């Protein structure tokens, strides 16, 4: 608590942890390349340097606000320093913007423009480093790296994976996996959160756009797509829609124009997952075995559990993720009623997620020896396709997702936000369409914002003890507490990305701050508009279970660990 003077204006502060936050609160968007509020402070870029009334300089991100401070943020000298710092950085940067994956959307490029860097007075000190293409999810291009350390701290502070680190010192410093290994040889779980915070093109999404274009162009293919709930609340960012705006209907039209013959809603897959997972929870509660039940729809979380806490593998739900269930059903449907022109089904999934790119390649993501989903495209990649075609979402007509899988429940939609799976599963434990209870469930804590929330929900005559966890550091903490006997739950939802899939590693990163609330509220809004609240009320599911899925529930909807 206190106040300080910033450029002659008095600014009050309360619980801000550093001077930079107070400066930003005062409306001055000081340029930075190494500050991410959720991460520890590192002080690498020095762009946030300010000056106090005694002429002392300090990096505002590293200093706590103190009552009575008097600082200047924009003296001619500070402005010159910022420009020179960027010049220095760019002198050792592979600044071939025109062929960079980050072109047009790059924080470094943007700052160079904002600070008016027009020439570089220093000799180029660029060095060549090999691109690391080994991961199925992300690509590292070290010659674009400015050593801000954001990815290192993200992977460690928030994700507890610690796959990236600094190596070497002085001008030979590099950010790389330890011992110079390739990403695929580390514990990286593919969450893509490092890419979300990277201010440059040094970490990018492993793209399969070219493969999908080729598939679309081949007349022997029938290309269909499913779109995850989280995508519709984020893709509008790049087309000027308000934050969080649900643009699913326009997206369906535009995807048809791109050549996707059918566009389905992954929320239907989520309905299947919720149904199966509710049954699994029922069964485990009855037998008292393998509790707590852990969700398994986030592939980055599943990898984390396998690599860091293998003793908990039996607790993982055997359910496939919504994407994989839907993928398997689409194949089975195609086998049953093959295309009349004899074309091959190519199944594409549009996801907010980089880890899903790895999930489709796992052995248990195959049915009868065939890969269920052929390609995963992230929201970012789909944006690229739409733009390269010359289309836009803005003028697009609206259309509904295609049948026969077009009927979904609200429960399937909220999957995209952390807490959504839990809420969806627990809705099935409420008897009948009991509005009071459905509303009461919203308020037990499942919709709070913290990374670990726990609550007890009373259904009928029993209490279900649940926890909702997002961020893998939080997951690590909760698993340790369970192991040590400090915590007892029946059901725990884990999502790798803080806030859930709406904040996934393949989503557009906005320069307008954190999009979490806007995207989450948009999904809850979509749920309100659905007549069908519970997956058990979805009439399409009954039909499907009575026909296509009859006797094949396990084969199509659960993880087949044999790889056949």
């Amino acid at each position: 608590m206190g106040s300080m003077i910033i450029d002659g204006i008095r600014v009050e502060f309360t619980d801000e942890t550093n001077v930079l936050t107070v400066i930003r609160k005062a409306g001055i968007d000081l340029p930075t390349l190494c500050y991410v509020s959720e991460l520890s402070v590192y002080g690498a870029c020095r762009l946030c340097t300010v000056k106090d009334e005694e002429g002392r300089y300090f990096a505002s991100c590293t200093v706590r606000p103190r009552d009575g401070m008097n600082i200047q943020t924009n003296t001619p000298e500070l402005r010159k320093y910022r420009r020179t710092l960027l010049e220095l950085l760019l002198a050792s940067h592979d600044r071939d913007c025109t062929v960079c994956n980050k072109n047009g959307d790059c924080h470094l490029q943007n700052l160079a423009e904002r600070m008016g860097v027009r020439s570089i007075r220093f000799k180029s000190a660029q060095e060549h480093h090999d691109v690391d293409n080994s991961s199925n999810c992300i690509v590292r291009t070290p010659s674009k790296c400015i050593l801000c350390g954001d990815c290192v701290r993200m992977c460690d502070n928030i994700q507890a994976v610690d796959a990236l680190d600094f190596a070497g010192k002085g001008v030979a410093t590099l950010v790389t996996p330890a011992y110079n290994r390739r990403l695929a040889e580390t514990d990286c779980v593919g969450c893509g959160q490092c890419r979300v915070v990277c201010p440059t093109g040094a970490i990018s999404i492993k793209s399969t756009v070219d493969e999908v274009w080729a598939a679309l162009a081949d007349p022997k293919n029938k290309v269909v797509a499913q779109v995850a709930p989280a995508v519709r609340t984020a893709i509008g960012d790049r087309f000027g829609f308000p934050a969080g705006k649900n643009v699913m209907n326009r997206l369906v039209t535009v995807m048809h124009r791109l050549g996707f013959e059918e566009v389905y809603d992954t929320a239907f897959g989520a309905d299947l997952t919720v149904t199966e997972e509710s049954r699994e929870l029922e069964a485990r509660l009855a037998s008292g075995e393998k509790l707590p039940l852990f969700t398994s729809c986030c592939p980055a979380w599943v990898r984390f559990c396998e690599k860091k806490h293998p003793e908990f593998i039996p607790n993982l739900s055997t359910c496939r993720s919504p994407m994989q269930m839907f993928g398997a059903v689409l194949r089975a449907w195609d086998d049953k009623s093959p295309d009349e022109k004899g074309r091959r089904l190519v199944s594409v999934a549009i996801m907010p997620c980089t880890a899903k790119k790895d999930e489709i390649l796992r052995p248990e993501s195959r049915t009868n020896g065939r890969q269920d989903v052929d390609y995963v495209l992230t929201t970012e990649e789909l944006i690229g396709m739409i733009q390269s075609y010359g289309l836009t979402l803005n003028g697009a007509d609206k259309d509904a997702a295609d049948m026969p899988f077009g009927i979904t429940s609200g429960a399937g939609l909220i999957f995209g936000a952390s807490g959504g799976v839990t809420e969806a599963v627990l809705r099935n434990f409420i008897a009948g369409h009991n509005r009071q209870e459905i509303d009461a469930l919203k308020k037990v804590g499942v919709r709070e914002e913290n990374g670990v929330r726990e609550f007890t929900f009373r259904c009928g005559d029993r209490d279900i003890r649940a926890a909702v966890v997002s961020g893998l550091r939080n997951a690590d903490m909760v698993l340790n507490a369970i192991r040590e006997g400090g915590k007892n739950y029946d059901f725990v939802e884990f999502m790798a990305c803080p806030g859930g899939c709406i904040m996934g590693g393949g989503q557009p990163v906005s320069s307008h701050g954190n999009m979490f609330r806007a995207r989450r509220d948009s999904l809850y809004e979509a749920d309100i508009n659905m007549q069908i609240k519970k997956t058990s009320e979805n009439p399409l599911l009954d039909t499907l279970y009575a026909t296509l899925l009859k006797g094949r529930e396990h084969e199509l909807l659960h993880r087949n660990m044999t790889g056949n």
Partner: protein
Amino acid sequence: MEKSPETQKALAVLEKFTSDQCCGKCISCREGTRQMQQILTDSPLPSPSEEELALLSELGTLIDHTARCGLGKSIARQVLSVLEHQGGDERVIEEYLPGPYQELIFFDIDPKRCKGCSKCSRLCPVHAITGVIKQPFVINHELCIKCGTCMMNCKFGAISIKD
């Protein structure tokens, strides 16, 4: 052309610093000292031209005012002081005086790498480092002024900056 003794000295300081002492974590020091060294190396004259000196001094001041720890700051001052007094007496280099800020980073000794040689403890200007020979030494963060001397001089790379 043969470089002047001052230029040679400045280059030697920079060379040692960039290759061995700089931790490489902050831009101003890592890239700034690299470019200072480059400008001196590339200069065709015995001592830098007026224009070159202007750029060197711009970089030196930048590092002095924005580097993350005392190490970069004192190297920048040292080099500037040598260069600006070509042919004259060697000026006494201004000691690094800590600002009252820089609160959120600190120097730390990795007990696994520290061999307990006591060199850092002997060099620390404020006697912030204590320990027993052949056992890991410890920095008292209350006393430390974040000058970087210990990190620069540790032969085992046991001292680093933490956030």
